[in-house]
């Protein structure tokens, strides 16, 4: 009962009887207080539906969920008092200035900017020079910071961030995650969703979600550790032909393009030398093979393959 968020077998279906789309097919997980919990999956995996159910914006078709011990259906008013929510789309008033937005949200939550200023101080100081600027005229990164300030203004117990880093530049993304770590220090539970696999390692625990189903829940290290096969990064002069040839090779579990390399998952009986010899025989030049540590994306791809 002391978990910050509990989701049990959540099901959400959209559309008519004829064309049903199941956005969530029985999602269950628990988030401990003070944890940064990442929901990681591609677009259309059901992340936003999940967040909307947990923030009482949508009713689940089946299953139950609790936030801070309150039921998302019955006690929705209590939850609306205590959580912070930042939707995926920028959802502040574009024609209001930075300061006016913040003041407005403070008063909506029966508080003032002063009252919990220490919580947003670090973030707000970065946008304070532009406090008289209209929110619509801010850059993407600054909009994100302002939205975060507005979501934090009432010192929520649980913070829901739906794809906060989508469409934000790399530097701002890094800064944003640093802010989240600081908020964690303040004891705020954070649920964050993202389509970027590389952000998984910044969470305490992650849930990998695909097609409305959670494939795995673990710490980032645990997820990587669960990857049990040898992984190679391969490159050659002709990358396109290389991929074709790799797909023909029977000794592989999987192969897929990965940045400048192709990643190759070997079957237990296959050796590095065996693969090298095969590629030589196919006439590849400048061939380079090296063993690499799997990351979350490799795990995600592997889990996707086993799921289908």
């Amino acid at each position, binding site marked *: 009962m002391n978990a910050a968020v509990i989701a049990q077998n959540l099901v959400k279906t959209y559309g008519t009887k004829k064309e049903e789309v199941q956005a969530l097919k029985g999602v269950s997980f628990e988030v401990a207080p003070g944890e940064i919990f990442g929901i990681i999956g591609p677009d259309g995996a059901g992340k936003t539906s999940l967040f909307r159910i947990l923030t009482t914006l949508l009713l689940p078709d089946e299953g139950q969920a609790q936030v801070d011990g309150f039921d998302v259906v019955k006690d929705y008013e209590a939850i609306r008092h205590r959580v912070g929510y930042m939707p995926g*789309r920028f959802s502040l008033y574009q024609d209001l200035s930075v300061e006016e937005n913040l003041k407005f949200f403070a008063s909506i939550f029966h508080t003032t900017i002063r009252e919990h200023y220490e919580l947003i101080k670090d973030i707000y100081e970065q946008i304070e020079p532009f406090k008289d600027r209209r929110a619509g005229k801010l850059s993407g990164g600054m909009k994100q910071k302002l939205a975060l300030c507005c979501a934090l203004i009432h010192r929520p117990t649980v913070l829901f961030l739906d794809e906060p880093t989508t469409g934000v530049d790399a530097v701002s993304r890094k800064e944003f995650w640093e802010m989240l770590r600081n908020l964690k220090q303040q004891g705020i539970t954070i649920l964050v969703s993202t389509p970027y696999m590389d952000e998984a390692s910044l969470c305490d625990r992650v849930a990998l979600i695909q097609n409305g189903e959670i494939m795995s829940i673990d710490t980032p290290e645990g997820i990587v550790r669960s990857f049990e096969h040898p992984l190679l990064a391969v490159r050659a002069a002709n990358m396109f032909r290389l991929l074709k040839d790799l797909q023909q090779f029977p000794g592989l579990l999987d192969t897929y393009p990965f940045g400048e390399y192709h990643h190759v998952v070997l079957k237990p009986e296959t050796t590095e030398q065996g693969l090298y010899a095969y590629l030589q025989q196919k006439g590849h030049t400048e061939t380079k093979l090296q063993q690499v540590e799997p990351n979350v994306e490799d795990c995600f791809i592997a889990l996707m393959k086993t799921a289908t």
Partner: protein
Amino acid sequence: MKQFLSFVRKEFYHIFRDARTMLILLGMPVAQIIIFGFALTNEVKNSRIAVLDMSKDAATASLITELEASRYFEVEKRLHTYKEVEEEFKLGNIKMAVVLPQNFGADLLHFNTAQVQLIADASDPNVANTLTNYASAIIQDYQNRITDGRRLPYTIKTELRMLYNPQMEGAYSFVPGVMAMVLLLVCTMMTAITIVREKEMGTMEVLLVSPIQPIKIIVAKAVPYLLLSMVNIASILLLSVFLLDVPINGSLVLLVLESILFTVTSLVLGLFISTITDSQQVAMFISLTGLFMPTVMLSGFMFPIENMPRVLQLISNIVPAKWYYIIVRSVMIKGVGLEAVWKETLVLFGMMVFFLIMSIRKFKIRLA
């Protein structure tokens, strides 16, 4: 309370920072009053007519002078043959032709009767009707003058008296109409759009996940428009009285109170529309076709309801503007008090309560 006031202030920011909204809100009422006051009028002035005078005697000459002297007619052409009459109509030069037959004066003198033919272009029936009425009245006048003092056997004289609007000014009927139209448009369309915009912009999502109650959102959205509507009521009344010389014969307080009632009814109607729509376009479409058109057509302001088919007469009862139009006309032009319009007031009040209950019941506390 602080939460509520801060919401109202935010709404004012939205309104004042959007030039288009400001223009529609405050410019449109003034523009409409001026357009209706000076450009659009159903009075017919300075119509061009042709005269075919086959008699050319003293009687016809003075009759033609009478016609010309009125501000309604201008004699464009003197014709010589009957054939020319139709040619002139076909060319579109004239709206009406006056044909005075041969021996007009002599007939009048000796047989006590003479005939005048009025031929009007009835491709526009309203104008044709109005023109022939004007001309008949002038001819009647002329006859009264020459028979003055003499007693005619068996005559019934009709004596007309136009009550409340002796000059038959068009402004008397359209000022109440414009008031109904402007208040409805400003209050209903603008409030419908303002809530739907929050849905479209995604800000409703954030508002819902906050402690503010839906009823407060609804009322806070309505307050600025109510205040601005009062400004509009004031400006329309000022323009009517000082620019168009339309008097306020009844109680100003009653007129303003009734206007506020109608404003609130329109606001609630707008809120109701916003709760059942999801995009600004749909909200605008419903407000315009579902409300604006019926208001113009069925409130009695443009077309008399009494002349409509029974079905339309019944439908007109659900148009709020119809009741308000009756109230304003009664209070402002006729100068009657509440005792004469309490029924209409009650109908408006009932509509307001109905839409209020409906919008609170329909307000979505969730996204879907």
